[in-house]
């Protein structure tokens, strides 16, 4: 049974490789479309048929539970045939190159491929070799557009708007595609973006991203409406980016004391998975100001919106 769709939004490009290049109108169009799917996902009958007959392939070169599951559900709820290929599968382990994999899949006429890869730019490289649409589910440290979209949707639903909100993104900015996509999107929609991290976790040149930069959590969280925490990978200790999780948590981890530096009604977000006790403590992650669970819910809706919006320009749509 179809819900009467109010939005006729169409994404006029073949791929979604990043937030870079999307206009504010396009971003808002995706968010508005996603709102409809939020409502749909809360019904018992979630099935749509807009992607019936279409083939969606999830091609994940990097392990992911939530993003892959989120895309799989999104595709199935829209009626597509969904196939999952992840790094555990044999041909990837046999060392087949990225491009050979793309050419092989392309020969099977998929409509949409969702790709996650550990190398920045790999998804764009693959997109040039296929005839279908490609969605970037995260490429290296470069972009993760659907994460930024679901974060924006979550913020808008809780704060009513995005423009003129102060958003503090805290943590390993250097290695984070989530940070980059969010910075671009939030700036496009008029928010005031601040990044907080030790200097060793900030990219050289970050000042030119249109963000305020600080190495101090008290300064960084002052007047923040949204506090977005990023995961710190354990490998960062080996690379001498930060000396230990204890020191990191002491100076940069989000606990009740530091959250109090932000506005009293500030809300906490995290793209997951969390390292409890490293960048965020359990009391905050599970507390009243946390939006972390809602982000996951918004993820499915946003991915449905992206699939829907792209599919409206597929051949034979």
């Amino acid at each position, binding site marked *: 049974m179809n819900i009467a769709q109010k939005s006729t939004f169409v994404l006029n490009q073949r791929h979604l490789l990043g937030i870079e290049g999307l206009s504010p109108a396009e971003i808002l169009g995706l968010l508005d479309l996603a709102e409809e799917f939020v409502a749909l996902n809360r019904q018992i009958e979630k099935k749509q048929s807009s992607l019936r007959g279409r083939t969606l392939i999830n091609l994940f070169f990097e392990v992911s539970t939530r993003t892959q599951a989120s895309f799989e559900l999104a595709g199935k709820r829209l009626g597509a045939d969904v196939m999952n290929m992840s790094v555990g599968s044999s041909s990837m382990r046999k060392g087949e190159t990225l491009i050979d994999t793309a050419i092989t899949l392309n020969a099977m006429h998929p409509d949409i491929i969702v790709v996650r890869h550990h190398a920045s730019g790999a998804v764009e490289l693959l997109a040039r070799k296929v005839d279908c649409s490609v969605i970037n589910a995260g490429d290296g440290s470069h972009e993760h557009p659907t994460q930024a979209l679901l974060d924006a949707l979550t913020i808008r639903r809780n704060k009513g708007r995005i423009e003129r909100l102060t958003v503090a993104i805290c943590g390993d900015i250097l290695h984070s595609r989530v940070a980059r996509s969010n910075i671009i999107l939030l700036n496009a929609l008029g928010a005031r973006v601040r990044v907080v991290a030790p*200097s*060793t976790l900030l990219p050289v040149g970050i000042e030119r991203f249109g963000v305020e930069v600080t*190495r101090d959590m008290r300064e960084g969280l002052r007047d923040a409406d949204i506090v977005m925490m990023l995961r710190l990978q354990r490998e960062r200790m080996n690379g*001498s980016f930060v*000396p230990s999780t*204890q*020191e990191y948590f*002491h100076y940069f981890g989000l606990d009740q004391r530091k959250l109090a530096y932000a506005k009293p009604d500030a809300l906490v977000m995290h793209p997951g998975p969390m390292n409890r006790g490293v960048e965020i403590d359990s009391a905050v992650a599970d507390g009243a100001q946390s939006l972390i669970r809602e982000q996951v819910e918004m993820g499915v809706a946003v991915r449905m919106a992206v699939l829907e919006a792209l599919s409206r320009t597929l051949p034979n749509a």
Partner: protein
Amino acid sequence: MMVTERRPILLANGRILDPSRDLDIHGDLLLADGVVREAKRGIGAAGVPEGTEVIDCKGKVVTPGLIDMRAFVGEPGAEYRETIASASQAAAAGGVTTIVCQPDTSPVIDDPAIVDFVLRRARDTSIVHVQPMAALTKGLRGDEMAEIGLLKAAGAIAFTQGAKSVTNAQVMRRALTYARDFDALIVHHTEDPDIVGEGVMNEGEFAARLGLVGVPTAAETIMLERDMRLVALTESRYHAASLTCAESLEVLRRAKEQGLQVTASASINHLTLNEIDVGPYRTFLKLSPPLRAEDDRTALVAALASGLIDVVMSDHNPQDVEGKRLPFAEASAGAIGLETMLTAGLRLVHSAELPLMTLIKAMSSRPAEILGLAGGTLRQGSPADVIVVDLDSPWVLDPAELKSKCKNTPFDEARLQGRVVRTIVAGRTVYEYV
């Protein structure tokens, strides 16, 4: 540790030298409640509180207590070589009122708990101030940065790799970047260990004649050059722990001219001795970095005179007899110096190579400024860490009289001129020469 009751002290009729403000006057210095009250001519009986101890300093010099920026103290782990207590006794006898100690102890000072241990041991057993440096990398292994934030919060005054260099430039870069966020100072020993190899003294004709493997000055200069590039890249603060040669001074000069936040120390040994002093394989003169050629020594002294070299330190390194009583190449490197640093430095003053003010400044005010310590000055309200020096009295060093547990001094039986006659820490006399 001080059992004497603290009374006000008036140091009268002395030559008061305060390098923190280039003050050189004849007068009286009043100390009370652990701080400097006044420094001026003719304070007189009327100006002093009741019960003041009046000490006649006629013919003597009164200066801020010395701050020794590099001393190895054996706690924890090497108490047989030196303890905080014995080092403090040696320091007091040498006019050093603050010891900045190295972290290459056992265990290494790379954990806030160990910083805390050192501070508590000092509080309980030391008669002078002790400021511990912490390790820049975990275990001083050179591969992972130590917890600079937490260590500084626990009381570490600066960070160093001890008597070694961090050879991984990426680790050094990240450490400089990270330390900058905490306004933490990195004090780096500059010596490329691969070039040093088996070297045991300065490379050159003298080493060749003695049949000893030499260490070229390039081992130091190359590492210093690398570090200057990293400092420029990271815009951080940096202190070169021990420079010994003219080529390094050139690198330092260019770095300062470029505006980099760089300062440097030289050890009293490299300022007053050269490779020839090794003589017939005298292991008390075996140092690391090694004593250099006379040209390097004079360049170092000139650099100190001009302020290019900011700090003089003792590089106090107690080594027991067994380690030194071996063929030169096998012997341990290092010399003690807490007790003799000032006296040895006075040689340069007596030979007119260096003004007294400059020497004292490099041993007190400059270390205080660089480390952000309250001492090194006789300004009103500053800590009453003061010494009285007799510039002229001649004496012969008898190692048995030295207070350090180890007696490996390069000035064994040397004729010296000038000594500390009184050391006051926090307003109490902790050493007096009678």
